[in-house]
């Protein structure tokens, strides 16, 4: 009998041998490991019995979900006999989602088999928006589009090419395509989504996203409905619940009784827009009771810079700053916050105590919600992060990290340079501090004659439906003088695609390549999305070089599409575009996706080649097999890292300890976007910040520290908002007219996916309507009962929907989810998602538009027998059409909350009715535009925008210079 030590050593050796073969040593389902999944070694031939005990043999192929930004891992079960996908489940190898999915992941199968999906390129047959289409070849579409783009570029009109994206679902691929064309044509949806919150974080850290370590927190403070529909919903929600299960306290600010609120230890329903006032009252409590982390504040805040700027001539000691800090927030008492928010002072005090007790284990998160709803919403995230900064809960275990430290963007094979042009249609001079494109103002800019578009791509984006003021979009998109060609890259029909010239079908999450990385815990990982049938055929020994060969119909993927289009724009390479899309191994040939990702995984992902080699695979084979790779975990406080001595040769300090070095940077493999603080006057680059005599890496801000005081805001025309503060919302009670209520429209339905769900039948059966939440105290005076029709009147029109009378909403506030209300114009003979879109009559008289619902959805015959089993008819109401644009003058974020009047529906009102006056919409745009302080008047250095701020597709430095203002006419 061998001894225990020998046995134990034998087990260890057996496990190592097994793991080295890429196999699973411990079986599932097991309490010993999270392993309730098919073992990896059986992924080539996994056997399951169905309900009738029939055997099914599958290949399990990983990919990542594309139904929200979380990019959770999926495992496609590819039937070995039919080579079709049977189902999608979670990928246990994915570090972010850890094998778990929400309802949207498995519903990818519905999108694959959607009987209404677009299977071939289509070209409009009549007038734009008429709804008649003819099938065309990819070659015809590509040649037409490429010729127009080439003409725009060679004709000196590069700004007439624009790509408008919703969910990127990838990390910079398409931005680099646009850079290779030399156009400043990137346009995102972010200013209708998260740019408000991003601004708040960015002004603090130089990084525009938070990465809360919920799993390690003792107190979690969410200003969102994060557990049901937040950003990185599933990966974050599972970690929030992990923390709760071991005793962490969850605090939720949500005016609505969301599913998240039901899980909270402390739930408050504040007056919309008052969130920052509450946060400042908590901050005041921390300061007044001495619960803040003095050492952290002393070491890492830019308080010296603040004192020098705002209190010159006074003693520049930390003790002096602390006294001033107390005075700055003295007015934010619990009673003040209570008066603003309607939440009892005693409740706020209890929450403040809970926060104070968290120490460095306070994780906080705000992404949309209040930051996306209110004028000055960006101060909500800035005030929220103030709590972390006061407690030193920054990049700690259980604290909130800057996202760039928990994200890895591998350097690709080609890195085109910065465009040399500046596009005023997306980055107008009125918004020099906006972090993202003023995308939702585009129709107004076009109507004002600020420019035109020769080629406009909408890609996984539906501005007509998603943006406010969608009928102004319809007006712009149907004007062929304003938009020369509109190509909609989309897997499914949508309200914007109806107004396109080409509809180019792109694959869903299991039919395309992408690589991406998101901040979901204190670690870095990459996920690999891939066409699962292509990977399955490769396992069987086939070689697939064109994803169209395995996708349904002629559905393509974007990687190959953009490469092909770029070659057709520059067929002989004379424009310098083609070289960015050529093979490095075979010069003169097109770059393939295998070479693109193979090079990236081989050269830019630390540890991956070694992990792959241990299993006898190439890095690409490893990623095709497992779909994800964790590069690092437990990254921790990067700002505390000491700068290597070699970097400090010849370095100098400025007056506040920012350290600049003449040593050039060494390009690393991780190209995650962060801000780029300016060099000093001698051109030395900022490399760190001196803290108590040691040069540490710090933050990518001008000061290198956490910027409590933003010199940028002060110098660019907004000195009154240079500190974390409270800006009264446009829907503050004092701004409302008698009888007006606040409408909250920013919340999602947990099982829907904006418009990408389309005919995801399982999801549509779960959620298919969006009634108006109204409190009984508000409903009773109106004589409105549950289910009654009500008319909601906005500044530019109205919509009619059903009332849902509930105590789950604050009195004086009503709410309606933006996740429903899909439609298709009557008379459109082709297309449309028939499981989720109402058929409507859309009419225009002058500037007045009306929409009347002709019918809801109903059963229909198709290849899918379930379409005959549709039992719901209601698909909700499209409220966003009736909202004017309301851009925050600093962040550029659309302020979604609306001041509305709610009335019982009149005799002429019908469910789903919409009325909009686009002249009023334009007037509202002009009124909000007047709030701005533009760069021509406020730039301190003759540039359009602070160069250090993050910006998608950042142009070259020269492009930042303000143009000479013309004597008349629009700015260019």
């Amino acid at each position, binding site marked *: 009998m061998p001894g225990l030590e020998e*046995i134990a050593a034998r087990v260890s050796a057996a496990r190592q041998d097994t793991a080295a073969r890429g196999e699973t040593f411990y079986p599932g389902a097991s*309490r010993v490991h999270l392993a309730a999944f098919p073992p990896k070694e059986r992924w080539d031939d996994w056997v399951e019995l169905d309900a009738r005990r029939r055997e099914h043999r599958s290949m399990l192929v990983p990919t990542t979900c594309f139904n929200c930004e979380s990019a959770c891992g999926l495992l496609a079960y590819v039937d070995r006999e039919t080579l079709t996908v049977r189902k999608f489940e979670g990928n246990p190898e994915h570090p972010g989602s850890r094998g778990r999915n929400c309802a949207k992941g498995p519903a990818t199968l519905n999108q694959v088999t959607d009987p209404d999906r677009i299977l071939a390129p289509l070209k409009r047959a009549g007038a734009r928006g008429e709804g008649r289409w003819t099938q065309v070849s990819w070659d015809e579409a590509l040649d037409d589009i490429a010729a127009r783009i080439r003409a725009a570029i060679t004709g000196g009109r590069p700004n007439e090419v624009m790509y408008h994206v919703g969910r990127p679902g990838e990390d910079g691929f398409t931005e680099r395509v646009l850079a290779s064309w030399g156009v400043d044509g990137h346009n995102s949806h972010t200013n209708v989504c998260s740019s408000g919150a991003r601004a708040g974080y960015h002004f603090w850290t130089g990084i525009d996203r938070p990465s809360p370590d919920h799993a390690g927190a003792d107190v979690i403070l969410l200003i969102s409905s994060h557990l049901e529909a937040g950003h990185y919903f599933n990966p974050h929600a599972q970690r929030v619940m992990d923390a709760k299960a071991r005793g962490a306290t969850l605090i939720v600010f949500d005016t609505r009784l969301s599913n998240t609120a039901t899980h909270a230890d402390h739930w408050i329903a504040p007056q919309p827009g008052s969130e920052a006032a509450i946060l400042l009252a908590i901050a005041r409590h921390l300061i007044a009771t001495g619960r803040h982390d003095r050492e952290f504040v002393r070491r890492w805040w830019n308080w010296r810079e603040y004192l020098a700027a705002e209190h010159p001539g006074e003693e520049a000691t930390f003790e002096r700053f602390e006294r001033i800090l107390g005075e700055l927030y003295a007015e934010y008492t619990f009673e003040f916050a209570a008066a603003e928010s309607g939440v009892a002072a005693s409740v706020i005090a209890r929450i403040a105590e809970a926060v104070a007790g968290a120490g460095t284990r306070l994780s906080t998160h705000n992404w949309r919600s209040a930051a996306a709803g209110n004028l000055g919403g960006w101060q909500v995230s800035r005030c929220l992060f103030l709590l972390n900064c006061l407690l030193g809960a920054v990049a700690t275990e259980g604290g909130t990290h800057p996202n760039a430290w928990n994200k890895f963007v591998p350097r690709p094979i080609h890195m085109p340079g910065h465009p040399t042009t500046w596009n005023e249609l997306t980055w107008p001079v009125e918004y020099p501090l906006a972090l993202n494109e003023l995308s939702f103002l585009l129709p107004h800019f076009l109507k004002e004659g600020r420019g035109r578009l020769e080629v406009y791509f909408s890609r996984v984006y539906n501005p007509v439906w998603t943006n406010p003021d969608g009928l102004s979009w319809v007006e712009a998109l149907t004007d062929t003088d304003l938009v020369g060609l509109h190509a909609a890259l989309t897997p499914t029909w949508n309200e914007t695609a109806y107004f396109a010239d080409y509809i180019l079908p792109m694959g869903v999450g299991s039919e395309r390549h992408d690589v991406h990385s998101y901040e979901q815990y204190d670690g870095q990982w990459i996920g690999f999305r891939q066409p699962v049938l292509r990977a399955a055929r490769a396992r069987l020994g086939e070689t697939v070089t064109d994803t169209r060969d395995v996708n349904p119909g002629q559905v393509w993927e974007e990687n190959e599409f953009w490469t092909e289009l770029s070659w057709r724009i520059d067929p002989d390479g004379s424009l310098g575009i083609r070289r960015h899309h050529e093979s490095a191994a075979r010069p003169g040939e097109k770059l393939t996706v295998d070479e693109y990702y193979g090079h990236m995984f081989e050269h830019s992902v630390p540890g991956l080649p070694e992990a792959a080699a241990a299993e006898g695979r190439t890095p690409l084979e490893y990623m095709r097999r497992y779909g994800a790779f964790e590069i690092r975990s437990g990254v921790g406080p990067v700002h505390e890292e000491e700068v290597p001595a070699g970097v400090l040769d010849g370095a100098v300090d400025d007056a506040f300890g920012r350290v600049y070095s003449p040593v050039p940077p060494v390009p690393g493999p991780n190209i995650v976007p962060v801000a780029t603080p300016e060099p000093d006057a001698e051109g030395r680059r900022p490399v760190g910040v001196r803290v108590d005599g040691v040069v540490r890496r710090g933050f990518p801000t001008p000061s290198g520290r956490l910027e409590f005081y933003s010199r940028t805001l002060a110098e660019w025309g907004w000195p009154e908002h240079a500190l974390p503060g409270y800006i009264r919302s446009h829907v503050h009670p004092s701004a409302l007219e008698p009888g007006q209520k606040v409408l909250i429209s920013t919340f999602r339905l947990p099982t829907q996916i904006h418009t990408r769900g389309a005919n995801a039948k399982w999801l549509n059966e779960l959620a298919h309507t969006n009634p108006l939440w109204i409190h009984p105290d508000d409903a009773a005076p109106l004589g409105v009962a549950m289910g009654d029709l009500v008319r909601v009147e906005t500044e530019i029109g109205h919509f009619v929907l059903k009332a849902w009378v509930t105590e789950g909403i604050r009195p004086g506030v009503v709410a309606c989810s933006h996740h429903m209300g899909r439609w298709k114009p009557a008379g459109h003979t082709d297309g449309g998602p028939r499981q989720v879109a109402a058929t409507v009559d859309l009419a225009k008289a002058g500037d007045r538009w009306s929409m009347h619902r002709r019918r809801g959805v109903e059963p229909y015959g198709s290849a899918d027998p379930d379409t005959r089993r549709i039992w719901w008819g209601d698909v909700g109401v499209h409220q966003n059409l009736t909202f004017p644009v309301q851009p925050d003058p600093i962040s550029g974020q659309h302020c979604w909350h609306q001041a509305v009047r709610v009335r019982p529906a009149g005799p002429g009102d019908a469910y789903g009715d919409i009325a909009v006056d686009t002249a009023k919409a334009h007037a509202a745009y002009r009124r909000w535009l007047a709030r701005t302080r533009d760069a021509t008047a406020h730039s301190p250095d003759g540039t359009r925008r602070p160069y250090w701020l993050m910006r998608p597709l950042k142009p070259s430095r020269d492009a930042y210079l303000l143009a000479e203002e013309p004597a008349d006419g629009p700015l260019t």
Partner: protein
Amino acid sequence: MALSPELFRALGALCEPPDPAHARLTEALGLPGGADAEAHTAVFVLQLVPYASVYLGPDGMLGGRAAERIAGFWRALRLRPPAEPDHLAALLGLYASLAEHEYAEAEPARRLMWRHARRTLLAEHLLTWVPPYAQAVAATAPGFHAAWARLLTGALAAEAQELAAPPSAAHLRDVPGPPRPGDETFVRALLAPARSGLILTRADLARGARETGLGPRAGERAFVLRSLIDQDPAAAFGWLAAEAAGWRKRHDSAPPGVPAGHWADRAESTRRALTDLHHAAMEMTHVS
């Protein structure tokens, strides 16, 4: 020399339902044969469920204060308690994980913290019940599981010596007193291992019926035991007293490092009480 943490994780995995991957574990551990589904069910589902709360709780039942105390231990480590925090596989997996953290930790103070956590888990939540539990398995089950149980006991004993596990444990300090004749809950207390010092399985009761010539009735264990006592108190108590004596001996022979004082004391108290009851019943029989 410390044992590899893998040993404990592997031993834990083997009280999970059989899986083809168990063959590798069995071979590495050098166990005879393998566990089929029937044997697994017999040992871990019908006779000796591997949950700490059954052997440490005041009622000998799943869940309750003992399970919650163990869940609290997970939470104290900032871990989310699994659905069954007191399952032997979960505890052994946790033990292995703590050992791995300890061995991987370079910073001495943190390494000491990991070691302290592992020592606490061993002393509080493993050594308090696994040695008698494993003895019961070894006595009841056929070759594979008996060998597994002996290996488990040996491994834990080695760890106990390595870590110098303290003898006192909160679980056992809070256990109500031994079964007292005349109490309404006497039979229940006999079947609560931490109170009586005995582990009586369904198979044990069937054996008792055979050995005493009494008729076993179908039902849960308390019902079966009551029916045996009702049929012939002298025979039933006599058999139970002998069982208690046997358990006393087993506890006394616990390997070095395994604190068995509580269990031996309880088995002895129970033996005495049962012996008294046996004598009283015999007198009643002679009188009648």
